[in-house]
């Protein structure tokens, strides 16, 4: 479905303009010409020539950037495709998404990378940036050809789903990826310590009789990675931090000026392991939902800059895979369509201010991974989202755009509504158009 028909010039009327990177925060209009911001503020409304969208006082900001999603294509198209994933992304305000390598075949060869990039271009919704595998087949044995993968478009390397298996391989990966100025993203988990666990180890796992994953399982590998990082010139990005101990380790490492960044996901600051009681396998992900103490430590980490960004770890699974024994169901939940609303809840509760949230979900992830992003300045890229913070949405109603619906937030009323998303000045999402077409 080619989207070349759409115009990349428009006029957005009556909006609040916000960009934490340029410091813009004002009311006015915005004019985009050929995919770039031409002018904004108290500018004249054009009489003709370009489409005019009514902002109605909504907020326009740089589009969101997600550095951690699973689009499942190639290989698991029954869970998600690049098209359905992209649709989910733009409806959630995302203009750029990094997709993980645990596809089938694994993204460990440039052909796979190019296949993803080309498919995403054909679809023409959000920008898609593949993450290459660290090791061939994610097996933790042989390094991938990171040079070729970088040339094909990979923006980072990860064996996500698995930790980089051995300390030696992790060291080599960090050193070698540095050659291409790419970070290694590690899923920090000591599998031996997790020992087949299916949720956080604590009171809830005791009560439910489910095998626990201790928080040390994350902390041990974060600590390993940081100590190895110290002696290399590589860059480490810690994926989906979930524990208070993990936050503490990264905070200390940053004080030591190690080249480390970290992400967390909305579910780790929104929920605790108590959610497993009512949401069952829709609250099962890896790392697992932790305790209230961990949840608060994650929020503190976001506030003080220890955690650089919010990523979704969007992990679609088909209903038949989740509708089964808790211990047999796969790990993972979808997140692209609920992430921003969950972030807004932090703003509404006073934990973050709006510009900090936008920084964590757009500016910072784009900078760390060297990705294009929208900017509200003259000549800035028109990768933008328009949202209405005063409205609410009900998650997954009438349906998710993702092919899957494995979300603990399903049917929950959440803050904010994404109204429009623009990528390169083209409108790729409009909730009212969608309503009309439904």
């Amino acid at each position, binding site marked *: 479905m080619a989207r070349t028909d759409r115009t990349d010039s428009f006029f957005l009327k009556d909006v609040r303009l916000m960009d934490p990177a340029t410091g813009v925060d004002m009311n006015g209009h915005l004019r985009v010409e050929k995919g770039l911001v031409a002018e904004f503020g108290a500018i004249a409304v054009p009489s003709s020539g370009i489409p005019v969208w009514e902002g109605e006082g909504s907020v326009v900001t740089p589009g969101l950037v997600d550095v951690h999603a699973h689009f499942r294509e190639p290989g698991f198209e029954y869970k998600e495709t690049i098209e359905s994933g992209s649709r989910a992304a733009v409806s959630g305000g995302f203009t750029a998404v990094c997709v993980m390598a645990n596809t089938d075949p694994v993204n460990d060869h440039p052909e796979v990378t190019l296949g993803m990039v080309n498919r995403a271009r054909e679809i023409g919704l959000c920008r898609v940036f593949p993450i290459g595998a660290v090791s061939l087949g994610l097996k933790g044995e042989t390094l991938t050809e990171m040079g070729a993968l970088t040339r094909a478009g990979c923006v980072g390397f990860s064996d996500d789903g698995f930790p980089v298996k051995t300390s030696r391989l992790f060291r080599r990966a960090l050193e070698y990826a540095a050659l291409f100025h790419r970070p290694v993203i590690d899923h920090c988990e000591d599998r031996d310590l997790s020992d087949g666990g299916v949720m956080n180890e604590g009171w809830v796992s005791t009560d439910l009789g*489910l095998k626990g994953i201790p928080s040390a399982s994350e902390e041990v590998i974060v600590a390993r990675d940081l100590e190895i990082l110290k002696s290399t010139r590589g860059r480490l990005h810690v994926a989906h931090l979930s524990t208070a101990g993990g936050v503490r380790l990264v905070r200390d490492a940053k004080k030591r000026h190690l080249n480390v960044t970290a992400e967390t996901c909305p579910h780790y600051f929104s929920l605790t392991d108590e959610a497993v009681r009512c949401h069952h396998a829709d609250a099962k992900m890896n790392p697992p939902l932790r305790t209230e103490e961990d949840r608060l430590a994650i929020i503190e980490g976001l506030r003080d800059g220890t955690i650089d960004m919010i990523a979704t770890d969007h992990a679609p699974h088909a209903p038949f895979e989740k509708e*089964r*024994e808790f*211990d047999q169901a796969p790990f993972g939940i979808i997140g692209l369509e609920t992430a921003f609303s969950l972030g807004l809840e932090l703003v509404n509760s006073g934990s973050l201010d709006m510009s900090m949230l936008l920084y964590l979900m757009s500016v910072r992830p784009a900078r760390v991974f060297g990705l294009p992003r929208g900017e509200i300045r003259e000549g800035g890229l028109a990768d933008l989202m328009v949202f209405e913070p005063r409205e609410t949405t009900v998650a997954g109603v009438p349906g998710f755009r993702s092919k899957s619906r494995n979300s603990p937030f399903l049917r929950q009323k959440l803050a904010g509504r994404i109204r429009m998303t623009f990528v390169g000045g083209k409108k790729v999402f409009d909730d009212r158009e969608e309503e009309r077409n439904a």
Partner: protein
Amino acid sequence: MSDFLTSSHLLSVEDLTTDEMNGIFRTADSFLDLSSRTVKKVPSLRGKTLVNLFYEPSTRTRTSFEIAAKRLSADVINITTSQSSVVKGESLLDTVRTIEALGADGVVIRHPSSGVPEWISRRVGCHVINAGDGLREHPTQALLDLYTILKRKGRFEGLQVAIVGDILHSRVARSNIRALTRMGVRVRLVGPPTLIPQDTKGWNVEVVHDLKEGVRDCDVVMALRLQLERATASFIPSLKEYARLYGISPGILRIAKPDVLVLHPGPINRGIEIQDEESFHSHSGILDQVHFGVGIRMAVLYLLMAGQ
């Protein structure tokens, strides 16, 4: 009859109020009287079909449910599904469809995954009775254990019970902890730190690692079955060391109350959890447990299924 259960399923002992538990015990009394007669059957569940669906090998519990159902004149279908058919891809949803297709009025389910009976109960129209799920619950076992205690001690209030062994992997322990504390019994968990859950804060129990300290002044000592593979998985160094540190022997029982009652859900690893059983025969309630099991299960089936 006012003793019928308000919930249409028995998934956890937490589904039961203390009144309902006492109602089950009263009903079990009358059914056990019946079992001493020559004609042991009553027609209470005539025309009803009960499916025994076991995903784990079990002789005692399955047989006990089967006898109980037959004495109530229910038709019983036994389905033992080995793990292999699960591996072959038979899903729980298929199971739900099977139950519906059989037109069962009740299903007794045992499953190695915690939470499965509850999961099934939300998807079928019939009564679901949990016969043991993963590490979570085994409510009829706890009920028969409590019933045995009640018969032998005449009360719950003020009793001190020690549950000894592999608490971490025991659904019997979990159900008993919930049921006993609900009935006002003081509970002590005794075992090596590797076999006690890391967090027990929601249970109103005392945790003790030394067996002698654990059984001191106890009215009841409940030994749990130790899965022999725990030694290979490094939860304990060896069965020999476990037996030495946590085996219930006549010497250990001298530290407990003189009239201490010893229980075990069975099957017993003799010489490991329990040593020289013959020598404390009069303290053992283990055969009572088996006998009372049928009465308790008759009571549960009757109080769940005969009402509607």
